[in-house]
Protein backbone atom coordinates (compact mmCIF):
# COMPACT_ATOMS: atom_id res chain seq x y z
CA UNK A 1 0.00 0.00 0.00
CA UNK A 2 2.79 2.38 0.92
CA UNK A 3 4.63 1.26 -2.18
CA UNK A 4 1.71 2.30 -4.36
CA UNK A 5 1.54 5.71 -2.78
CA UNK A 6 5.29 6.04 -3.21
CA UNK A 7 4.90 5.35 -6.88
CA UNK A 8 2.05 7.81 -7.10
CA UNK A 9 4.10 10.47 -5.42
CA UNK A 10 7.03 9.65 -7.67
CA UNK A 11 5.00 10.07 -10.84
CA UNK A 12 3.41 13.24 -9.49
CA UNK A 13 6.81 14.69 -8.75
CA UNK A 14 8.10 13.71 -12.18
CA UNK A 15 5.20 15.47 -13.88
CA UNK A 16 5.74 18.49 -11.69
CA UNK A 17 9.43 18.55 -12.57
CA UNK A 18 8.73 18.25 -16.27
CA UNK A 19 6.21 21.06 -16.01
CA UNK A 20 8.66 23.34 -14.24
CA UNK A 21 11.51 22.51 -16.57
CA UNK A 22 9.33 22.81 -19.64
CA UNK A 23 8.04 26.22 -18.61
CA UNK A 24 11.56 27.46 -17.96
CA UNK A 25 12.64 26.28 -21.41
CA UNK A 26 9.71 28.08 -23.00
CA UNK A 27 10.53 31.32 -21.20
CA UNK A 28 14.13 31.10 -22.32
CA UNK A 29 13.19 30.51 -25.96
CA UNK A 30 10.67 33.33 -26.06
CA UNK A 31 11.90 36.41 -24.24
CA UNK A 32 9.48 38.94 -22.78
CA UNK A 33 8.11 41.73 -25.05
CA UNK A 34 10.06 44.97 -25.73
CA UNK A 35 8.56 47.47 -23.25
CA UNK A 36 9.93 45.50 -20.39
CA UNK A 37 13.21 44.75 -21.99
CA UNK A 38 15.10 47.73 -20.54
CA UNK A 39 14.14 46.78 -16.99
CA UNK A 40 14.58 43.12 -17.74
CA UNK A 41 18.00 43.50 -19.40
CA UNK A 42 19.88 43.06 -16.20
CA UNK A 43 17.53 40.35 -15.11
CA UNK A 44 17.81 38.61 -18.52
CA UNK A 45 21.43 38.02 -17.70
CA UNK A 46 20.57 36.41 -14.36
CA UNK A 47 17.45 34.63 -15.51
CA UNK A 48 18.94 31.51 -17.21
CA UNK A 49 21.29 31.00 -14.28
CA UNK A 50 18.50 31.45 -11.79
CA UNK A 51 16.33 29.06 -13.77
CA UNK A 52 19.11 26.49 -13.74
CA UNK A 53 19.66 26.87 -10.04
CA UNK A 54 15.96 26.65 -9.39
CA UNK A 55 15.56 23.55 -11.53
CA UNK A 56 18.55 21.86 -9.98
CA UNK A 57 17.26 22.64 -6.52
CA UNK A 58 13.87 21.21 -7.35
CA UNK A 59 15.47 18.08 -8.80
CA UNK A 60 17.69 17.61 -5.78
CA UNK A 61 14.91 18.17 -3.28
CA UNK A 62 12.53 15.82 -5.04
CA UNK A 63 15.20 13.14 -5.37
CA UNK A 64 15.96 13.41 -1.69
CA UNK A 65 12.25 13.19 -0.94
CA UNK A 66 11.91 10.10 -3.09
CA UNK A 67 14.85 8.43 -1.39
CA UNK A 68 13.47 9.37 2.02
CA UNK A 69 10.08 7.92 1.21
CA UNK A 70 11.67 4.71 -0.07
CA UNK A 71 13.92 4.60 3.01
CA UNK A 72 10.95 4.97 5.34
CA UNK A 73 9.16 2.22 3.46
CA UNK A 74 12.18 -0.10 3.79
CA UNK A 75 12.47 0.67 7.52
CA UNK A 76 8.77 0.01 7.93
CA UNK A 77 8.97 -3.26 6.04
CA UNK A 78 12.21 -4.45 7.72
CA UNK A 79 11.34 -6.94 10.41
CA UNK A 80 8.02 -7.88 8.89
CA UNK A 81 7.86 -11.56 7.93
CA UNK A 82 8.02 -12.27 4.22
CA UNK A 83 4.66 -12.64 2.58
CA UNK A 84 3.76 -16.23 1.79
CA UNK A 85 5.89 -17.43 -1.03
CA UNK A 86 5.22 -20.23 -3.42
CA UNK A 87 1.86 -21.56 -4.49
CA UNK A 88 -0.60 -23.20 -2.11
CA UNK A 89 0.25 -26.77 -1.17
CA UNK A 90 3.79 -26.61 -2.55
CA UNK A 91 6.84 -25.90 -0.42
CA UNK A 92 8.24 -22.39 -0.87
CA UNK A 93 11.33 -22.26 -3.09
CA UNK A 94 14.77 -22.27 -1.45
CA UNK A 95 16.47 -18.99 -0.67
CA UNK A 96 20.05 -18.07 -1.55
CA UNK A 97 21.85 -17.58 1.74
CA UNK A 98 24.94 -15.66 2.74
CA UNK A 99 26.65 -16.92 5.89
CA UNK A 100 29.18 -14.56 7.43
CA UNK A 101 31.88 -16.28 9.45
CA UNK A 102 34.21 -14.73 12.00
CA UNK A 103 37.30 -15.82 13.86
CA UNK A 104 37.21 -18.04 16.88
CA UNK A 105 33.94 -18.54 18.66
CA UNK A 106 31.91 -16.81 15.96
CA UNK A 107 32.40 -19.59 13.41
CA UNK A 108 31.83 -22.32 16.01
CA UNK A 109 28.55 -20.68 17.00
CA UNK A 110 27.42 -20.13 13.42
CA UNK A 111 28.12 -23.72 12.39
CA UNK A 112 26.27 -24.88 15.50
CA UNK A 113 23.25 -22.89 14.33
CA UNK A 114 23.53 -24.06 10.73
CA UNK A 115 23.38 -27.68 11.84
CA UNK A 116 19.75 -27.06 12.83
CA UNK A 117 18.65 -25.38 9.60
CA UNK A 118 17.31 -27.47 6.78
CA UNK A 119 19.85 -27.20 4.01
CA UNK A 120 17.43 -27.65 1.14
CA UNK A 121 15.59 -24.48 2.21
CA UNK A 122 18.76 -22.39 2.32
CA UNK A 123 20.40 -23.01 -0.99
CA UNK A 124 22.71 -22.03 -2.62
CA UNK A 125 24.90 -21.12 0.35
CA UNK A 126 27.67 -18.58 0.22
CA UNK A 127 30.23 -18.45 3.00
CA UNK A 128 32.29 -15.31 3.55
CA UNK A 129 35.17 -15.10 6.00
CA UNK A 130 37.81 -12.45 6.57
CA UNK A 131 40.94 -12.72 4.43
CA UNK A 132 43.15 -13.20 7.47
CA UNK A 133 40.96 -15.91 8.97
CA UNK A 134 42.32 -19.28 7.98
CA UNK A 135 40.24 -21.68 9.96
CA UNK A 136 36.68 -20.58 9.36
CA UNK A 137 36.31 -21.49 5.68
CA UNK A 138 37.97 -24.84 6.36
CA UNK A 139 35.41 -25.59 9.04
CA UNK A 140 32.59 -24.51 6.75
CA UNK A 141 33.95 -26.79 4.03
CA UNK A 142 33.87 -29.65 6.52
CA UNK A 143 30.25 -28.94 7.38
CA UNK A 144 29.25 -28.84 3.73
CA UNK A 145 31.09 -32.05 2.96
CA UNK A 146 29.15 -33.93 5.60
CA UNK A 147 25.96 -32.90 3.86
CA UNK A 148 24.79 -34.67 0.76
CA UNK A 149 27.88 -34.64 -1.40
CA UNK A 150 26.14 -33.87 -4.64
CA UNK A 151 23.82 -31.18 -3.43
CA UNK A 152 25.79 -29.59 -0.63
CA UNK A 153 29.31 -28.99 -1.75
CA UNK A 154 28.61 -28.23 -5.38
CA UNK A 155 26.09 -25.50 -4.64
CA UNK A 156 28.12 -23.81 -1.91
CA UNK A 157 30.71 -21.14 -2.48
CA UNK A 158 33.45 -19.94 -0.16
CA UNK A 159 34.83 -16.43 -0.37
CA UNK A 160 37.16 -14.17 1.51
CA UNK A 161 36.70 -10.49 2.19
CA UNK A 162 39.04 -7.74 3.31
CA UNK A 163 38.60 -6.97 6.99
CA UNK A 164 37.28 -3.60 8.10
CA UNK A 165 39.43 -3.71 11.20
CA UNK A 166 41.95 -6.13 12.67
CA UNK A 167 41.76 -6.84 16.39
CA UNK A 168 43.70 -4.06 18.11
CA UNK A 169 44.00 -1.87 15.02
CA UNK A 170 43.85 1.85 15.72
CA UNK A 171 40.50 3.44 15.01
CA UNK A 172 42.05 6.03 12.69
CA UNK A 173 43.58 3.61 10.19
CA UNK A 174 40.42 1.56 10.56
CA UNK A 175 38.52 4.26 8.67
CA UNK A 176 40.61 3.65 5.53
CA UNK A 177 40.55 -0.12 5.80
CA UNK A 178 36.80 0.01 6.38
CA UNK A 179 36.36 1.96 3.14
CA UNK A 180 38.36 -0.65 1.25
CA UNK A 181 36.34 -3.37 2.91
CA UNK A 182 33.12 -1.63 1.86
CA UNK A 183 34.18 -1.53 -1.81
CA UNK A 184 35.12 -5.19 -1.68
CA UNK A 185 31.89 -6.02 0.09
CA UNK A 186 29.93 -4.17 -2.59
CA UNK A 187 31.63 -6.21 -5.28
CA UNK A 188 30.86 -9.50 -3.51
CA UNK A 189 27.27 -8.53 -2.72
CA UNK A 190 26.56 -7.54 -6.30
CA UNK A 191 27.69 -11.00 -7.36
CA UNK A 192 25.83 -12.92 -4.67
CA UNK A 193 22.66 -10.84 -4.07
CA UNK A 194 21.52 -13.16 -1.29
CA UNK A 195 17.93 -13.45 -0.15
CA UNK A 196 18.95 -14.39 3.39
CA UNK A 197 21.92 -13.21 5.44
CA UNK A 198 23.03 -14.95 8.63
CA UNK A 199 25.62 -13.28 10.84
CA UNK A 200 26.64 -13.31 14.47
CA UNK A 201 28.93 -10.42 15.15
CA UNK A 202 32.33 -10.26 13.48
CA UNK A 203 33.26 -6.85 12.07
CA UNK A 204 33.09 -8.28 8.56
CA UNK A 205 29.32 -8.38 8.78
CA UNK A 206 28.77 -4.61 9.10
CA UNK A 207 29.73 -3.54 5.55
CA UNK A 208 27.87 -6.53 4.09
CA UNK A 209 24.68 -5.83 6.03
CA UNK A 210 24.79 -2.10 5.30
CA UNK A 211 25.10 -2.88 1.59
CA UNK A 212 22.22 -5.34 1.90
CA UNK A 213 20.15 -2.52 3.36
CA UNK A 214 21.12 -0.24 0.48
CA UNK A 215 20.13 -2.96 -1.97
CA UNK A 216 16.71 -3.00 -0.29
CA UNK A 217 16.34 0.76 -0.70
CA UNK A 218 17.51 0.85 -4.29
CA UNK A 219 15.54 -2.28 -5.15
CA UNK A 220 18.39 -4.58 -6.22
CA UNK A 221 17.45 -7.34 -3.80
CA UNK A 222 15.38 -7.75 -0.67
CA UNK A 223 17.67 -9.63 1.79
CA UNK A 224 16.30 -10.80 5.11
CA UNK A 225 19.06 -10.14 7.63
CA UNK A 226 19.21 -12.33 10.72
CA UNK A 227 21.67 -11.26 13.41
CA UNK A 228 22.39 -13.63 16.29
CA UNK A 229 24.51 -11.92 18.95
CA UNK A 230 27.31 -14.10 20.25
CA UNK A 231 26.80 -16.09 23.45
CA UNK A 232 29.84 -14.29 24.83
CA UNK A 233 27.82 -11.06 24.93
CA UNK A 234 25.93 -11.14 28.21
CA UNK A 235 25.49 -7.52 29.31
CA UNK A 236 26.60 -5.45 26.33
CA UNK A 237 26.17 -5.85 22.60
CA UNK A 238 29.18 -6.07 20.36
CA UNK A 239 29.93 -3.02 18.20
CA UNK A 240 28.53 -4.79 15.12
CA UNK A 241 25.42 -5.75 17.03
CA UNK A 242 24.91 -2.25 18.36
CA UNK A 243 25.21 -0.74 14.88
CA UNK A 244 22.83 -3.20 13.27
CA UNK A 245 20.36 -2.84 16.13
CA UNK A 246 20.34 0.96 16.29
CA UNK A 247 20.26 1.43 12.54
CA UNK A 248 17.47 -1.14 12.30
CA UNK A 249 19.31 -2.99 9.59
CA UNK A 250 18.64 -6.49 10.91
CA UNK A 251 15.21 -7.91 10.17
CA UNK A 252 15.44 -10.10 13.24
CA UNK A 253 17.89 -9.56 16.08
CA UNK A 254 18.52 -12.46 18.47
CA UNK A 255 20.23 -12.36 21.87
CA UNK A 256 21.16 -15.31 24.05
CA UNK A 257 20.96 -13.78 27.52
CA UNK A 258 17.91 -12.20 29.20
CA UNK A 259 19.95 -9.22 30.41
CA UNK A 260 20.43 -8.11 26.81
CA UNK A 261 16.79 -8.57 25.95
CA UNK A 262 15.86 -6.23 28.81
CA UNK A 263 18.27 -3.60 27.53
CA UNK A 264 17.34 -3.98 23.88
CA UNK A 265 13.63 -4.68 23.73
CA UNK A 266 13.42 -5.10 19.97
CA UNK A 267 15.69 -8.15 20.26
CA UNK A 268 14.35 -11.69 20.51
CA UNK A 269 15.66 -13.73 23.47
CA UNK A 270 16.37 -17.27 22.36
CA UNK A 271 18.45 -18.62 25.26
CA UNK A 272 21.93 -20.07 25.05
CA UNK A 273 22.51 -21.70 21.70
CA UNK A 274 25.78 -23.43 22.61
Amino acid sequence: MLLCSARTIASAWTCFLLAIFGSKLCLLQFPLPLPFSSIKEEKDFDFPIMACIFTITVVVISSVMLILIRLLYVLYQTGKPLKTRGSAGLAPPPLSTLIILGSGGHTAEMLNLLAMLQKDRFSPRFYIAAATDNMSLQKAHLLEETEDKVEGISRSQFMQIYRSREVGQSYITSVLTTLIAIVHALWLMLRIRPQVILCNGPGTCVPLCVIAFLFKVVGIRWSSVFYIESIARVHRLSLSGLLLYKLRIADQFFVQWPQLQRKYPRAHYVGCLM
Partner: protein
Amino acid sequence: MGDTEVRMKSKKTVFVTVGTTSFDALVNAVDTREVKEELWRRGYTEILIQMGRGSYIPSKSEGGDDSIAVDYFTFSSSIADHLRAASLVISHAGSGSIFETLWLGKPLIVVVNEDLMDNHQSELAEELADRKHLYCARPQTLCHIIADMKLESLIPYHPGDTTPVAKLINRFLGFSED
Protein backbone atom coordinates in the same frame (compact mmCIF):
# COMPACT_ATOMS: atom_id res chain seq x y z
CA MET B 1 51.09 -42.59 57.53
CA GLY B 2 54.88 -42.54 57.61
CA ASP B 3 57.81 -41.66 55.41
CA THR B 4 58.09 -45.19 54.11
CA GLU B 5 54.52 -45.30 52.80
CA VAL B 6 54.41 -44.99 49.05
CA ARG B 7 51.69 -42.68 47.99
CA MET B 8 49.72 -44.46 45.31
CA LYS B 9 47.69 -42.13 43.24
CA SER B 10 45.71 -42.90 40.18
CA LYS B 11 46.56 -40.69 37.26
CA LYS B 12 44.59 -37.47 37.31
CA THR B 13 45.48 -34.92 34.68
CA VAL B 14 44.96 -31.20 34.75
CA PHE B 15 44.72 -29.84 31.22
CA VAL B 16 45.57 -26.16 30.80
CA THR B 17 44.62 -24.51 27.51
CA VAL B 18 45.00 -20.99 26.09
CA GLY B 19 43.54 -21.73 22.67
CA THR B 20 45.09 -19.77 19.82
CA THR B 21 46.01 -16.87 22.09
CA SER B 22 49.10 -15.93 24.02
CA PHE B 23 48.42 -16.01 27.75
CA ASP B 24 51.76 -16.03 29.54
CA ALA B 25 50.21 -14.91 32.81
CA LEU B 26 48.19 -18.11 33.05
CA VAL B 27 51.02 -20.46 32.04
CA ASN B 28 53.27 -18.65 34.48
CA ALA B 29 50.71 -18.95 37.27
CA VAL B 30 50.26 -22.67 36.68
CA ASP B 31 54.02 -23.13 36.67
CA THR B 32 54.46 -21.64 40.15
CA ARG B 33 55.33 -23.80 43.12
CA GLU B 34 52.19 -22.75 44.99
CA VAL B 35 49.80 -23.82 42.28
CA LYS B 36 51.63 -27.08 41.58
CA GLU B 37 51.65 -27.96 45.27
CA GLU B 38 48.00 -27.05 45.60
CA LEU B 39 47.06 -29.23 42.63
CA TRP B 40 49.12 -32.09 44.03
CA ARG B 41 47.42 -31.64 47.39
CA ARG B 42 44.03 -31.86 45.69
CA GLY B 43 45.00 -35.20 44.16
CA TYR B 44 46.18 -34.41 40.64
CA THR B 45 49.23 -36.21 39.32
CA GLU B 46 50.11 -34.33 36.19
CA ILE B 47 49.64 -31.03 34.39
CA LEU B 48 49.51 -30.80 30.61
CA ILE B 49 49.78 -27.24 29.31
CA GLN B 50 48.71 -26.18 25.83
CA MET B 51 50.53 -22.86 25.65
CA GLY B 52 49.50 -21.54 22.24
CA ARG B 53 51.37 -18.48 21.01
CA GLY B 54 52.80 -17.67 24.42
CA SER B 55 56.48 -16.97 24.98
CA TYR B 56 56.79 -18.17 28.56
CA ILE B 57 57.99 -21.76 28.54
CA PRO B 58 57.12 -23.82 31.60
CA SER B 59 59.59 -26.27 33.06
CA LYS B 60 58.92 -29.91 32.30
CA SER B 61 58.94 -32.31 35.17
CA GLU B 62 58.71 -36.06 35.45
CA GLY B 63 56.88 -35.76 38.72
CA GLY B 64 57.14 -38.69 41.05
CA ASP B 65 55.98 -39.67 44.45
CA ASP B 66 55.69 -36.26 45.89
CA SER B 67 55.46 -33.84 43.06
CA ILE B 68 53.26 -33.26 40.11
CA ALA B 69 54.42 -33.96 36.56
CA VAL B 70 54.40 -31.10 34.07
CA ASP B 71 54.40 -31.27 30.30
CA TYR B 72 53.49 -28.80 27.58
CA PHE B 73 52.92 -28.30 23.87
CA THR B 74 51.97 -25.30 21.73
CA PHE B 75 49.10 -26.33 19.47
CA SER B 76 47.20 -29.36 18.42
CA SER B 77 44.61 -29.69 15.69
CA SER B 78 42.02 -30.76 18.22
CA ILE B 79 42.15 -30.55 21.98
CA ALA B 80 39.09 -32.78 22.31
CA ASP B 81 41.13 -35.85 23.25
CA HIS B 82 43.09 -33.93 25.86
CA LEU B 83 39.87 -32.58 27.30
CA ARG B 84 38.38 -36.03 27.47
CA ALA B 85 41.41 -37.43 29.27
CA ALA B 86 41.52 -34.62 31.82
CA SER B 87 40.07 -34.60 35.33
CA LEU B 88 40.24 -30.82 35.60
CA VAL B 89 40.49 -28.19 32.88
CA ILE B 90 41.96 -24.74 33.38
CA SER B 91 41.16 -22.63 30.34
CA HIS B 92 41.36 -19.13 28.96
CA ALA B 93 38.01 -17.41 28.60
CA GLY B 94 37.39 -18.14 24.92
CA SER B 95 33.84 -19.32 24.32
CA GLY B 96 35.00 -22.20 22.13
CA SER B 97 37.18 -23.70 24.88
CA ILE B 98 34.57 -23.08 27.54
CA PHE B 99 31.70 -24.78 25.77
CA GLU B 100 33.78 -27.63 24.40
CA THR B 101 34.77 -28.41 28.00
CA LEU B 102 31.29 -27.93 29.45
CA TRP B 103 29.75 -30.20 26.83
CA LEU B 104 32.15 -32.95 27.92
CA GLY B 105 31.03 -32.42 31.50
CA LYS B 106 34.54 -31.70 32.77
CA PRO B 107 35.19 -29.52 35.83
CA LEU B 108 36.43 -26.17 34.58
CA ILE B 109 38.30 -23.19 35.94
CA VAL B 110 38.21 -20.26 33.52
CA VAL B 111 41.02 -17.76 33.88
CA VAL B 112 40.35 -14.30 32.46
CA ASN B 113 43.19 -12.55 30.67
CA GLU B 114 43.36 -9.05 32.09
CA ASP B 115 45.79 -7.90 29.42
CA LEU B 116 43.17 -8.13 26.70
CA MET B 117 41.94 -4.67 25.80
CA ASP B 118 38.32 -5.40 25.18
CA ASN B 119 37.54 -7.92 27.84
CA HIS B 120 34.07 -9.00 26.88
CA GLN B 121 35.17 -12.57 27.47
CA SER B 122 35.04 -12.02 31.19
CA GLU B 123 31.27 -11.40 30.97
CA LEU B 124 30.66 -14.94 29.78
CA ALA B 125 33.01 -16.53 32.32
CA GLU B 126 31.51 -14.56 35.20
CA GLU B 127 27.94 -15.28 34.15
CA LEU B 128 28.59 -19.02 33.91
CA ALA B 129 30.41 -18.89 37.26
CA ASP B 130 27.40 -17.11 38.80
CA ARG B 131 25.29 -19.97 37.51
CA LYS B 132 27.76 -22.39 39.13
CA HIS B 133 28.76 -24.15 35.93
CA LEU B 134 32.45 -23.39 36.41
CA TYR B 135 34.92 -21.47 38.55
CA CYS B 136 36.23 -18.12 37.39
CA ALA B 137 39.68 -16.85 38.35
CA ARG B 138 42.39 -14.34 37.54
CA PRO B 139 46.02 -15.51 37.23
CA GLN B 140 46.74 -14.10 40.70
CA THR B 141 43.77 -15.81 42.34
CA LEU B 142 44.21 -19.20 40.66
CA CYS B 143 45.94 -20.83 43.61
CA HIS B 144 43.25 -19.63 45.99
CA ILE B 145 40.46 -20.92 43.74
CA ILE B 146 42.11 -24.34 43.41
CA ALA B 147 42.48 -24.57 47.18
CA ASP B 148 38.85 -23.72 47.85
CA MET B 149 37.07 -25.34 44.93
CA LYS B 150 34.34 -27.87 45.55
CA LEU B 151 33.95 -29.57 42.20
CA GLU B 152 30.97 -31.64 43.32
CA SER B 153 29.04 -28.44 43.82
CA LEU B 154 29.34 -27.45 40.17
CA ILE B 155 26.09 -27.70 38.25
CA PRO B 156 26.31 -29.66 34.99
CA TYR B 157 25.80 -27.53 31.91
CA HIS B 158 23.15 -28.66 29.49
CA PRO B 159 24.00 -27.91 25.86
CA GLY B 160 21.91 -25.19 24.30
CA ASP B 161 19.11 -25.67 21.87
CA THR B 162 19.06 -23.96 18.52
CA THR B 163 15.50 -25.07 17.75
CA PRO B 164 13.82 -21.80 18.84
CA VAL B 165 15.99 -19.71 16.52
CA ALA B 166 15.54 -22.12 13.62
CA LYS B 167 11.77 -21.98 14.15
CA LEU B 168 11.72 -18.19 14.24
CA ILE B 169 13.84 -17.91 11.11
CA ASN B 170 11.77 -20.48 9.24
CA ARG B 171 8.53 -18.81 10.24
CA PHE B 172 9.81 -15.40 9.21
CA LEU B 173 10.81 -16.66 5.78
CA GLY B 174 7.52 -18.44 5.17
CA PHE B 175 8.77 -21.99 5.62
CA SER B 176 6.85 -24.44 7.77
CA GLU B 177 8.28 -24.66 11.25
CA ASP B 178 9.26 -28.30 11.55
